[in-house]
């Protein structure tokens, strides 16, 4: 298209400013809404995925409960009690276990003091591999190790909250802190992306806790990761195998859902991913619907415009405009209106998302709303197609204008 034709078009569009503006608004609004919807969808998805960042997304979490089915002559309501032997058995016999840890629960908040500074914290007793299940990052020193476990060492790994409250910026490594009457030595400092709560934990070796708090060899919770590349099917199989193994060891039915609760994060994560895929499809449908409404609007207004301009078209034809010249003029008009306004809508949408991203603090429900390049390209293609579509029917009508009728003196 030559610049000349463009000038001719813009001149024509200028003659119906209000009409052109309103038409443009309907398309701009459609694209704006699509971008906002997709960006918000991405924001919600990012928020949800962020919640998983704290935990390994390829792990199985197991809690013992009480039996609810009679089995091998045992009555129901029997408590299942997991021990270090179960930890060893799962580690040895279940296929694909990568990192495994138990947790020994220490009820309530523990008063912890250091040279007069006192605060209370959750204390978590676990195996060394726990680090990999909670995505705990060591920032100085080390995490709990096998030797700590074997020798029931009184050591602790503390989070940034404890460092701040007890040490006030001083290097805590090697210092002794009092954890509810037991002196333990700080061997490491960690960080966790799981928020304030995870940041204020204190980790001690599980064996130390079992010994100090009368747990013998009891484990309250067993967690392990399976191969990174695992799929849902495999994770379900591993969960089944684990359950059968523990059922055999503790004499309860493998069908008993209450004797052992299993949380499969692979399945959970997959479910969330699927959910967001469906939400995205839904958003596209809604967004395209909005744009279609805009296109129909443009088509309608162009149709009215062609009818109004019958005389103009007749004059142009009499002066030598070919049908193709008329058709291309109308289609290009539609294309320019939808294209320019669509781009304004796209721009406004992205600008709005950027504002939200800058000024709304990220949360677990909403963070980093954004649209990717693919969406922008997709929206552009949609715009061009919609422009062509919006112009096509009016253009066909314009091409059929009979100059004789159009030119008849009124």
């Amino acid at each position, binding site marked *: 298209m030559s610049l000349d034709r463009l000038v001719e078009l813009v001149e024509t569009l200028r003659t119906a400013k209000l009409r052109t503006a309103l038409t443009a608004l309907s398309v701009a609004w459609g694209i704006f809404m699509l971008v906002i919807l997709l960006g918000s969808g991405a924001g919600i998805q990012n928020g949800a995925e962020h919640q998983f960042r704290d935990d390994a997304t390829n792990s199985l979490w197991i809690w013992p409960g009480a039996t609810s089915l009679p089995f091998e002559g045992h009555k129901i309501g029997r408590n299942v009690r997991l021990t270090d032997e179960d930890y060893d058995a799962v580690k040895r016999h279940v296929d694909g276990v990568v990192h495994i840890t138990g947790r020994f629960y220490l009820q309530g908040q523990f008063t912890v003091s250091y040279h007069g500074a006192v605060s209370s914290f959750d204390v978590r007793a676990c195996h060394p591999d726990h680090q990999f299940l909670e995505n705990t990052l060591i920032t100085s020193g080390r995490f709990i190790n096998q030797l700590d476990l074997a020798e029931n060492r009184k050591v602790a790994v503390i989070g940034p909250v404890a460092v701040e409250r007890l040490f006030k910026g001083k290097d805590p490594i090697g210092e002794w802190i009092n954890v509810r009457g037991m002196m333990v030595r700080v061997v490491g400092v960690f960080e966790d992306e799981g928020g304030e709560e995870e940041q204020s934990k204190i980790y001690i070796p599980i064996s130390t806790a079992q010994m100090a708090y009368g747990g013998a060899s009891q484990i309250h919770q067993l967690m392990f990761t399976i191969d990174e590349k695992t799929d849902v099917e495999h994770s379900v199989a591993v969960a089944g195998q684990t359950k059968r193994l523990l059922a055999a060891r503790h004499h309860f039915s493998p069908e008993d859902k209450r004797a052992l609760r299993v949380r499969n994060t692979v399945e959970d994560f997959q479910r969330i991913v699927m959910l967001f895929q469906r939400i995205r499809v839904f958003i596209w449908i809604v967004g395209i619907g909005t744009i279609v409404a805009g296109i129909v609007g443009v088509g309608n207004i162009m149709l009215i415009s062609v009818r109004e301009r019958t005389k103009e078209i007749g004059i*142009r034809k*009499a*002066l030598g405009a070919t049908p*193709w010249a008329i058709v291309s003029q109308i289609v290009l008009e539609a294309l320019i209106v939808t294209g320019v306004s669509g781009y304004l809508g796209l721009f406004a949408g992205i600008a709005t998302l950027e504002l939200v991203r800058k000024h709304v603090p990220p949360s677990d429900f909403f963070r980093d709303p954004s649209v990717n390049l693919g969406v922008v390209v997709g929206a552009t293609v949609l715009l061009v197609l919609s422009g062509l579509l919006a112009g096509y029917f009016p253009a066909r009508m314009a091409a059929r204008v009979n100059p004789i009728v159009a030119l008849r003196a009124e």
Partner: protein
Amino acid sequence: MIHLERVNKSYHLGHHALHVLRNVDLTIEEGELVSIMGSSGSGKSTLLNILGILDDYDSGTYRLGDALIRDLSESRAAQYRNRFIGFVFQSFNLLPFKTAAENVALPLFYQGVPRARRNALALEYLARVGLEAWAMHLPAEMSGGQKQRVAIARALITKPRVLLADEPTGALDSKTSEQIMNLLIDVNASGVTVVIVTHEPKVAARTHRTIRLRDGVIEADEDRA
């Protein structure tokens, strides 16, 4: 220049066929100044539409110069109109949102003439009709006579071989009609064939030849030259 041989044209309105032109034979030589007269319904407008390639005919032949005008595609017809024919209408038919100069330049747009050249030519042709000072005015700011002069400039800018005028003075007062007729006579004097459809005897009287139509038949062909 214009050669019609046994041209027939009828319109079908429901079951009735309205035979508007019956075996019209007509020859107009290059450089003639001809008026076509007739009461309304005589077929004069239809004849003008056929001459202007705005309408088709049923049978016979129409030659414009060397070209046989028959069953042309719309694009072809548009090209012929653009190259060979200039139109002047009773209601001027200027585009209201374009200035006088832009209106005059419009036919050249469809020839693909570059803008600068188009505008220069438009000013030249506006000067020819005495309106160079009005080049940047919109039609709404001009009188009927001025608008018709703009329309004549627009009709002439493509250097057509035939100028077809449909009641060119129909919307003008008698003094302005005079001026427009003078202008058309000047145009004819410059070598352009001019055909004027009119029902005003005064206008017809100033042409060199008058063709009278009645019920689709040429009733009289008076040559005054």
